């Protein structure tokens, strides 16, 4: 679950960003809506314990992030947060399999080939394990990156503009894949986007909670 109370962040020398309070149950979907510069990135960084709030508090998966130190934050993030960036940043020097192994390395975990294969299989890309990222199609690459995000079985999956530069059909598939994957892992899904197609394609039965950003600056 995710909940915030009077969450605010001020960049050194910049305007203060205030965020509306939210309360999300575990397994829900949170849509972060807003135009560029409205604070989506900051909210994601706060939720990932990369930034510490200047005031207020944010609690993610039962952990208040206000009190979390930098070192503890890294370890906590490795266990709790899965992240699908807009640019996928699969390392071109490494195979698909090794890219996932590197995620385990980053988390400070021993390499677990079984788990890597499980994650790739869950996303339907197990047969691509030995390929280099350059040999993947856009859709395949996104699935691999998503497999990397859920490898550590996170409680929260953060995604940043997952439908950018996708056509309508691909965007629909991407959103459904995200939601299905989050459901399979029992993870809370956070999608930061300004793309209206995301909301349109989310499974209404499960429901989602929007958080509109950009109204409460200054």
């Amino acid at each position, binding site marked *: 679950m995710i909940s915030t109370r009077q969450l605010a962040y001020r960049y050194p020398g910049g305007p203060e960003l205030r965020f509306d309070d939210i309360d999300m149950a575990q397994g829900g979907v949170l849509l972060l809506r807003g135009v560029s510069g409205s604070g989506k990135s900051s909210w994601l960084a706060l939720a990932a314990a*990369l930034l510490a709030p200047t005031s207020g508090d944010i609690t993610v998966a039962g952990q208040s992030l206000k009190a979390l130190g930098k070192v503890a934050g890294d370890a906590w993030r490795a266990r709790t947060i899965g*992240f699908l960036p807009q640019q996928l940043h699969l390392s071109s020097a490494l195979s698909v399999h090794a890219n996932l192994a590197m995620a385990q390395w980053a988390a400070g975990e021993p390499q677990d080939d079984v788990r890597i294969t499980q994650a790739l299989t869950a996303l339907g890309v197990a047969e691509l394990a030995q390929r280099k990222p350059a040999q993947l199609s856009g859709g395949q690459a996104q699935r691999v990156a998503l497999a990397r995000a859920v490898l550590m079985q996170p409680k929260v999956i953060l995604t*940043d503009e997952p439908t950018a530069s996708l056509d309508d059909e691909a965007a629909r598939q991407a959103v459904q894949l995200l939601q299905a994957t989050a459901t399979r892992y029992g993870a809370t899904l956070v999608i930061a986007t300004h793309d209206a197609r995301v909301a349109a394609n989310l499974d209404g039965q499960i429901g989602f909670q929007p958080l509109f950003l950009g109204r409460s600056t200054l």
Partner: protein
Amino acid sequence: MKTIAIAWRFLWSRPLAAGLNVLLLSLGLASLSFVLLVSHQIEKAFERDLAGIDVVVGAKGSPMQLILSGVFHLDVPTGNVPLAAVNELEKHPQVAKLIPISLGDSYRGFRIVGSTPDYLAHYSAAFAQGAVWTAPLQAVIGAQAAAQTGLKVGDRFAGSHGLGGGGDIHDQTPYLVSGVLAASGSVLDRLVLTGLDSVWQVHEKMHEGDTALDAEDKQALEEEREVTLALIQYRTPLAAVTFPRFVNTTTEMQAAAPALEITRLLNLIGVGTDVLRALAGVLLLTAGLSVFIALWSAVRERRADLALLRMLGAPPRKVAALLLCEALWLALLATLIGVLAGQGLMALLGWLLQLEKSVLIGALAWPPGLWWVPVLAVGVALLSALLPAYEAYRVPVFELLQSR
């Protein structure tokens, strides 16, 4: 996956840059290893051949020439001295051991050295076959000379006049090989050794060829007998103070202290090795800069990839360690290649020198100074990686999240 494995893959993800950096580092390290090995081997060779020889007495002239010709058999001698004068010196109370040496002929470029069996004993020579000479015109062949000329016990050969090749052949007075020495690495390896009287006989026969000599002439020749020089060991170290002066002032001969002359020679060579060492330093500096630029641009290029590692939970020091690890790989590879190349060049030089019948230098060696090579490699690589690693350490993860 281990940090070193990831660093290895990252390193070779840019094969051209990695290859260039390994090459540059290796070049610097190879030159450095080579200089270190050469100075080590030459000093060792000098030390070995000089062991136990406190002073060399011979005809007046350049003292260094006397040492080079008498001890290392590299230069031509300064001249001859009367045997009688040398025999006088042997009676001097400060002289513990005196080995007379007579030069003049050679066989296929290898010097024929007339001396006493003491000379063999001085270098603790061991025989591969045969034994020491027991009569005039018998010879003992050094290991390398035997290998190159193919001489073995029972063979006969005629020396030629002069220390190079191409002099008159003394074919009236052939030598009989009585023994072949086992390889010792000392100067004996490249010599043909015989008794002093053999040398005299060969040259007296030369005169005999023209006119018959009567007993009186022979007597005269015997009185005029000469040697080229004498190697002397002192009875006490104190003799070093007085003995050379005694020789230089009271006789027609000169005394040269090898230790002094070799120090002088090594200082002369030292200028050369200093230049090479400086060159190696410049190469290493260039390599260091290249490694720095490569890692720096790698960090720039992979900024977002590194940020992603942070997002995946890697602490900053882990990301920085990845960069340092890449640099260490470069250092390791370059050390391997550099030292191997240095040893290879050294072996090549040793081979060329023995073809020239010059100083013998040993095979593989790891002088303590050579530890500087890996130390420098790691130092240069880590120093070059320091700033890039710091840059990786504080890579702003936040940039990754900025919507584009």
